[in-house]
């Protein structure tokens, strides 16, 4: 028996948007996992506000499409209510690093068993292209005619410093998303997955894909924290030239810390 994860809502992403790749990757993985209607009930999705959040309408799963930047508190609430639920959070870079930064850092600290995607297109695309904390310096639009003056956040390094137990970055390619999601579900704890998802309309210069390489293929030791920090600093989201190297794959993974749910139970 197969379960249909599609809805009849017509996608309103731009034609060719990399969000379709993320949707396809997530759907491929879940279709393999969800065999019955009972299985379907064991999954929940949470989305914020932004282009990424439309994914909520295209997945036939339980969940909440909540407030801007509040994906993680909502997901954490779901997890407290039902610790056996498999919760997947979807967030954008504006949603996660601008509006919901404090939640992100505390979620890494709590280490709840949530799988968290950040669709990073380095721009507020839904509201037609204002800069986010991830936008490179010098980026111009109507709201910043003089160009962005501040360097972007290095989110991978930030999450490593905040104590996330699973930190990964992938390109918006359905195969990569599917693979990393299955790795994330094998991980016990908070999984932070950043997806580089170039916006075709409002951030079109970013030809990231040709600079990427895979960490696991290069023999990166994902249990080594110092190595992970070094790899995180290879790409700063700011400069793109021929020397740029964008590491993809799992930067760091550890299961030494207890999860949020385990701490809940042990308190009783």
């Amino acid at each position, binding site marked *: 028996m197969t379960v249909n994860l599609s*809805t009849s*809502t017509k996608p309103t992403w731009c034609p060719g948007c990399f969000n379709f790749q993320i949707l396809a990757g997530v759907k491929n993985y879940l279709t393999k996992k969800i065999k019955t209607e009972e299985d379907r009930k064991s999954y929940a999705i949470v989305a914020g506000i932004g282009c990424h959040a439309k994914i909520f*309408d295209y997945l*036939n799963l*339980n969940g909440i*499409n*909540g407030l801007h930047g509040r994906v993680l508190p909502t997901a954490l609430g779901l997890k407290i209510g039902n610790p056996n639920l498999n919760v997947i959070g979807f967030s954008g870079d504006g949603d996660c690093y601008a509006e919901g930064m404090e939640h992100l850092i505390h979620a890494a600290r709590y280490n709840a068993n949530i799988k968290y995607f950040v669709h990073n297109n380095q721009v507020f695309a839904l509201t037609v292209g204002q800069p986010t904390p991830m936008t490179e310096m010098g980026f111009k639009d109507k709201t910043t005619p003089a160009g962005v003056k501040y360097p972007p956040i290095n989110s991978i390094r930030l999450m490593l410093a905040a104590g996330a137990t699973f930190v990964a970055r992938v390109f918006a390619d359905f195969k990569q998303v599917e693979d990393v999601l299955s790795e994330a579900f094998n991980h016990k704890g908070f999984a932070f997955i950043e997806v580089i998802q170039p916006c075709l309309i409002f951030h079109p210069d970013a030809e990231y894909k040709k600079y990427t390489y895979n960490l696991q293929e290069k023999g990166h030791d994902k249990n080594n924290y110092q190595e992970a920090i070094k790899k995180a600093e290879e790409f700063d989201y700011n400069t793109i030239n021929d020397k740029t190297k964008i590491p993809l794959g799992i930067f760091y993974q550890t299961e030494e810390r207890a999860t949020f749910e385990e701490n809940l139970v042990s308190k009783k």
Partner: protein
Amino acid sequence: VKNTTVLGRYNSYESNNVDSCLTEDVGVIKANFERRMKKIPMIAKDSKSFSRYEIYDNKNKSSKNIILSWGSPKGAILDAIPGLKCKFLHVKYIEPFPEELEKELKGKNIILIENSSTGMLGDVLREKTGILIDNKNKILRYDGRPFLADELNKEIKRKLK
């Protein structure tokens, strides 16, 4: 065609009420607004079941002086008014507006006491009922400190008729 088959979907935005998917359909958006607006008269009806304002008659049931206030000045006012020829009306619930207030306040010498620089309750009263409180009859404090009973007592005495 049924859009989604699961029921546990929630959306905090303008959506189809059946499956919680975002919508830009003008018909659905309009229907949602009308549905929400229908709740207001129902809330107004429900709010009559609890006390929305309280009158402290201060042994002056027929006094034409009435002190109007809301929120934290209540305690100081109650301490200030014994012995003065006035009643005290404390508003606890303002939206939907308790219409009975008009009956209570019409034709009285209203003294507004508020911890604000504009006297917002007076503005609302003017908007909803047409009753205008004279600026001379407003005791407003906006220096970040609470009202004190003895100071209020002197102020109120000056404004009584």
